[in-house]
């Protein structure tokens, strides 16, 4: 029997991960060619219907505006936050890390709901206090605008983007900045001319990745519902048909259009990767970058953090607390306080045991799958020198552009097709595989950026010293990638715990998860219990994140001691 070389395990892992991505992408493309959900009769009818829609150009423009607007807001916060955590002596690092993790656990619809209550033009609290609603004339604020949608989506994407950037910032070679300092270059110029260019692959990856995510997000679009369509609404309507079969054709065609919108940016990124060695700064003679002393800028940094926390965590958590103590959703008022009680917390707690256990299993399984495939893919993409590697990476990059509901359907179809040989259909395993695939792009973006900064000379030195390629992989590559792996795992775990669409579509066995429990309670009008469960979930996830950081020892510089 031929013994597999350890290296072939890495290629095998990458291949399995890539296969899952292809299942998701092919599901979208094949779906776009179907009519009446018949997979044996392919047609371009859906494209004809989509492209002949007179409203399509406006829909595309709004979708592009949503993507770019959200990214601008995200980067405006995420870049400074990542820098504060990774490279400075900022005083509130643990607090910032905790709040970023907490934000990941807050359901998107709660954030949107909080803003609707505050800034809706008819009865928003802020408008009411100002006496300017559209009952009295012109409202002072109108949350139902695309610019508000960009702001809210942008704020929500900050933690993921920051966690993606931290590993890249931590791997910077400090000698470059030190040389600039010795040469008398001011700090901000060093940041602009040295740090930012070296971070370019990481920042570009974040921007492209979150552009794709922002145009596919549904929670905020559903609740804010600004005038006019965006592509994700077209997809939702096509799949949420009144009766009969979902219109996979139209949803798939709209999904392919999302690919097209993302493709330009991704192609640019692939070209960037070809010059990867230019950005490799973590070599054998690397100097620890050390911490930048913020001095008088400590206050400005704190103000920026407070601004984001208020907008992004404070308002939604206060909203959740309020919703959890009142019997039905209502704006805060003195009269409403009379009916406040802790019933929601008691009721929510009584449901938690089984869903929490199942959610923990799904989190663990998804993290394991996503990280295994992502580590293998990252190694292949950044180390194998194969000409097809960048294109494989681009394929992975496209995966988040596939609407979650389409990914779910594609995996269900795959589960049904291979059931005879591999009975995964209807199990949590298939849900984990689908979740892992959707999160693969996040993991590879985070890890690629870090891997590109690790100069191959380190691994070459190990081979010269007689280490096998496998030992080099496990003994050199993986330890250097530890921060990136940690933050990828953190993000995957949080998103897996919160994800609703995949479990809702794929879970036929009735295995309850916390996200589905929240959805069920909310749909039933039991908003107090739903909010209480969401708060429990936030507490559990934040504790998990803090524990994981402590146990793994992957703290930000300046905190290890």
């Amino acid at each position, binding site marked *: 029997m031929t013994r597999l070389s350890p290296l072939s395990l890495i290629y095998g892992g990458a291949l399995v991960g890539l296969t899952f991505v292809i299942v998701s992408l092919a599901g979208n493309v094949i779906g776009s060619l179907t009519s009446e*959900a018949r997979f044996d009769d392919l047609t371009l009818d859906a494209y004809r219907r989509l492209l002949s829609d007179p409203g399509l150009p406006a829909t595309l423009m709004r979708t592009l505006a949503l993507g770019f607007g959200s990214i601008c807001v995200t980067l405006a916060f995420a870049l400074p936050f990542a820098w504060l955590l990774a490279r400075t002596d900022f005083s509130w690092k643990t607090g910032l890390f905790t709040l970023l993790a907490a934000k990941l656990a807050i359901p998107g619809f709660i954030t949107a*709901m909080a803003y*609707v*209550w505050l800034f809706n033009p*008819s*009865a928003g609290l802020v408008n009411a206090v100002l006496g300017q609603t*559209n009952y009295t004339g012109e409202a002072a604020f109108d949350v*139902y605008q695309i610019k508000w949608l960009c702001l809210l989506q942008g704020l929500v994407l900050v933690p993921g983007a920051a966690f993606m950037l931290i590993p890249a910032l931590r791997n910077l070679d400090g000698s470059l900045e030190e040389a600039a300092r010795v040469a008398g270059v001011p700090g901000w110029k060093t940041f602009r001319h040295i740090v930012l260019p070296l971070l370019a692959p990481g920042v570009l990856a974040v921007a492209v990745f979150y552009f794709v995510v922002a145009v596919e997000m*549904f929670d905020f*679009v*559903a609740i804010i*519902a600004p*005038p*006019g*369509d965006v592509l994700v*609404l077209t997809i*939702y*309507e096509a*799949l*949420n*048909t*009144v*009766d*009969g*079969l*979902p219109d*996979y054709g139209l949803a798939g065609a709209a999904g392919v259009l999302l690919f097209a919108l993302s493709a330009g940016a991704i192609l640019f990124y692939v070209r960037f990767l070809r010059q990867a060695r230019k950005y490799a700064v973590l070599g054998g003679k690397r100097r620890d970058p050390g911490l930048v002393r913020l001095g008088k800028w400590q206050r400005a940094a704190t103000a920026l953090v407070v601004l984001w926390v208020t907008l992004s965590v404070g308002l939604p958590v206060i909203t959740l607390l309020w919703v959890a103590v009142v*019997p*039905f*959703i*209502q*704006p805060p008022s003195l009269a409403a306080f009379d*009916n406040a009680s802790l019933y929601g917390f008691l*009721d929510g707690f*009584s*449901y938690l045991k089984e869903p929490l256990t199942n959610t923990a299993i799904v989190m663990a399984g998804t993290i394991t799958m996503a990280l295994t495939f992502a580590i293998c893919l990252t190694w292949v993409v950044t180390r194998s020198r194969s000409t097809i590697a960048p294109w494989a990476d681009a394929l992975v990059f496209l995966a988040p552009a596939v609407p979650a*509901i389409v990914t*779910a*359907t594609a995996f269900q*179809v795959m589960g*049904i*097709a291979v*059931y005879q040989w591999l009975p995964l*259909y*209807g199990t949590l395993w298939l849900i984990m595989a689908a979740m892992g695939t959707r999160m693969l792009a996040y993991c590879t973006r985070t890890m690629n950026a870090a891997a590109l900064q690790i100069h191959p000379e380190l691994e070459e030195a190990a081979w010269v010293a007689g280490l096998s390629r496998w030992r080099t992989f496990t003994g050199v590559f993986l330890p250097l990638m530890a921060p990136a792996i940690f933050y990828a795992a953190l993000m995957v775990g949080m998103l897996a715990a919160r994800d609703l669409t995949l479990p*809702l*579509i794929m*879970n*036929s*066995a*009735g295995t309850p998860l916390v996200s*589905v*429990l929240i*959805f*069920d*309670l909310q*749909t*039933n*009008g039991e*908003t107090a219990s739903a909010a209480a469960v969401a708060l429990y979930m936030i507490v559990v996830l934040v504790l998990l994140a803090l524990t994981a950081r402590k146990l793994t020892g992957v703290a930000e510089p300046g905190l290890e001691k």
Partner: protein
Amino acid sequence: MKRLVIAVAVLLACPAWAQPANLSDAVRALIPLAEEEGALHVYGATLNPRQVRAFADSFNDYYGIDIDFTMSGGLHSAKASEVAMAHRAGVPTGIDVFWTGLISAMVETGALMDVDWAGTYGANESLTMGRWGLRTHDGHQSLVTVNTNRVSASDAPNSYKDLLDPKWRGRIVMPRSPYPWITMSYAMGEEETIALVSNLVSDQEPKMLARYADIRARVLSGEFPVAVGTDIFSLRNRGAPVTHPDMDLLVLASSGAFVLAGAEHPAAAKLWGLWAVSPEGQATLEETRSYSLAETPDTALNAYAAGRRVVHVPFEWRLQHHDRLAKTFLEILNRAGS
């Protein structure tokens, strides 16, 4: 002595002797089969664990059995499509009963089991849905809701045409879905409904939302004084400031229990359908979700329907006209904001 007391207590508490006396022989014959099957999974409504337990207890008590009962819910059209695919491939779905009003995807692939609910099991003929389903409750997708803090009883709309009053401009929240209007077409006539929806969209600037739970939240909070397409029976019981105004028309489209052709627990599935239409089942549906048949006495829907023009949209009519009307109304709804 202690053992005797416990035995008597168990016998008294044991529901096996509490079976209703009026069960037909055919139904009684299903009971041991269902016990042997031992489990049942119903896909349909989104219920919380306490409500699922209430369903399980009432169902098991009714027949004096102890079956492992589970439920799940979600997007019905996507799940129906998946069930159809799985059935075609001969793959078990884990679902025994599809509890829904939307079945055409499964009809086309033969994924539903033919069940002679009336002939074999003695169910009321008026409750059958085609040759597959048993009508368990009446849906009311076009109900109008008002926030009582914002709208007085005298100001509230009394007909769908009242929604076109300029005073409601920018004050109505409704679903982006064509569903409410499809069933309205049967009751009001196609042309009249198309005119109504077109005028609503063009003149009244309604806020259109993708999810029903969001519509309910907006009318509850008072942001929008009027909502179309959602019911608030259970919220009103909790003191929420919302009500269904005194409209001249109530349009009902039924949902039912459909046993899947590949059900692993077919006997339990049939028993579940029959339980759901029994007085005990109806009481449980009403208590947990305010679901009921309009004709079931002492339910919120029954009370609202009293003295009102009630139109039941026939199941066959829905199967025949849904797709066409869905396209028509989606086109109209999509004009908003474009």
